[in-house]
């Protein structure tokens, strides 16, 4: 299972990086979304995908699951959700202001 997840993470990072390097604004946003999904999967996978009972005092079991990665990934997920919505609004405003989503035209002054 870990190997499958690692491959998934790899593919997500690959596609995300590719999109991030393109010139269209929306593709860059999509690229960042995919990259952040990749990072969240990575966080979950790297700590080992265990099965076991919740680590509570009244539950007796052979194996307990590690709750920390799940708590971390939940937090990171919420943060990246907020960031993505902000980024989408910002890109939309930029698009409205400049009437283009081509980054070549969003470079700024010609001498830079």
């Amino acid at each position: 299972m870990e190997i499958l997840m690692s491959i998934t993470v790899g593919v997500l990072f690959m596609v995300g990086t590719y999109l991030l390097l393109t010139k269209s604004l929306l593709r860059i946003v999509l690229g960042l979304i995919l990259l952040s999904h990749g990072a969240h999967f990575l966080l979950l996978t790297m700590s080992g995908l265990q099965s076991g009972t919740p680590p509570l005092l009244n539950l007796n079991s052979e194996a307990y699951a590690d709750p920390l990665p799940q708590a971390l990934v939940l937090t990171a997920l919420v943060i990246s959700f907020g960031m993505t919505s902000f980024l989408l609004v910002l890109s939309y405003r930029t698009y409205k202001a400049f009437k283009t989503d081509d980054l070549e035209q969003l470079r700024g002054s010609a001498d830079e």
Partner: protein
Amino acid sequence: MNNLLVLPFLIPFAVGAILILFSKRIGLQRFLSGLTAILMLGVAIYLLSVVRAEGVVVLEVGNWSAPFGIVLVADLFAAIMVLMSAIVGLLCLFFAFRTIAPEREKFYFYPFYFFLLTGVNGAFLTGDIFNLFVFFEVMLISSYVLIVMGGTNYQLRESLKYVVMNIFASILFIATMAFTYAVTGTLNMAQLAERVAELEQVGVLNVIAMFYFIVFGMKGALFPLYFWLPRSYFGPPAAVAALFGGLLTKVGIYAIIRTFTLIFPHNQEFTQPILIWVGAVTIVIGGLGAVSNFDFKRILSYHIVSQVGYMVIGLGLYTSLAVAAAIYYIVHNIIVKTALFLYAGTAQRITGTTDLKQMGGLLKTHPLLGWMFFITGIAIAGIPPFSGFVSKLSLVVSSFETEHYVVGGIALAVGMLTLFSMIKIFMYVFWGEQKHTKAQGKTKVGDLLLPAIPLVILTTVLGVAAQPILSFFLEASNQLLDPSIYIDSVLKGGGA
């Protein structure tokens, strides 16, 4: 157990939340936020005095003992940084009262201002890598809002790049934490330090260390990841630019110093050359950028890049004096850089531009601004008796002591470039023909300069009282260079 540690970020967070409710009542917002900033300064001074007296202060949040729960830790370095953020926060706020347009004030300027301070102070005080990430994000989302607020085309275009850049850095940060957790099984900084020491910092741990360096380097504007800074800091109003220029990059540098003194100090042969040379290239690039530009704010932004390099060199040299010099440099830079951005804002208020070629003769109409700029300018170039001199001197001395002659030479040479670009600003803006109209020449700026006066006094005091202050920073740097103090107070002494 000391609940004092919560206050530096709980106060701005709570006040920021309350201020949202009164977004249309500007007078009340100003009153509340001014009061809060003064309160935060008081708390920061008290915190520093407590840390000075009692050593490292630890708070285990919710009484969960150290490696399991979240800890907040204040050593001397963190307390110094909290104090600096309180000073800058207070002064920029008072500058904002006079300069920020009412439209901005109505659209949640003050709440986000305080959320930014929440993130900054939280990042200084946390003892847990994941919480560092969370506080970084709190700081960043507020900075996104502040930097884009106003929504001119320039701001939209440049802050888009700033946001994309920082979101990418955050994603890298998450990935790095994933690797860290996989290798060490913990994210508590003290426990992490212990385990990295046990594992001996080789192989994959070096890779992780470099990942952290890249992530924090992006936030701290190190070469080659500095390019977003001069352009995005040009857009927002002066009060925001001053706050960012003074404080935000230093949070990245703080995180680099924290991770590389506490967690990854065990493989100096590997990390030392990287830190030193990245720092050296950064100061050269920043210096050249400052020389080649003809805009008040852009020159100052390139100086930020340049000076971040000095701090990283100080860390890279890794002697007690060099790290003290880095701390000195951070403190000096926060003070001076904030003041310079405030002058840029004041000059812009008078002349309506920040382009050097369209300014001139300000010294005749506004002598106070001119001389305050002069003092601060030579302070940043490193001329005695001001604070820049002591920090640069101790850095160069320690680079020669450790036989890094080339780096010391570069630091000195770029000092000349800094001086040159400061003189350039002074000549273009303050000397020469008066290019602003007579009506503009009558603009009263006394109340705009008021917030900068404490900064000028501070840089003078830091320079004149170098001996006691440097020995205080040496104390802080010795605390940083001996990670066992930090580790023991978190893992063993905590809760006492």
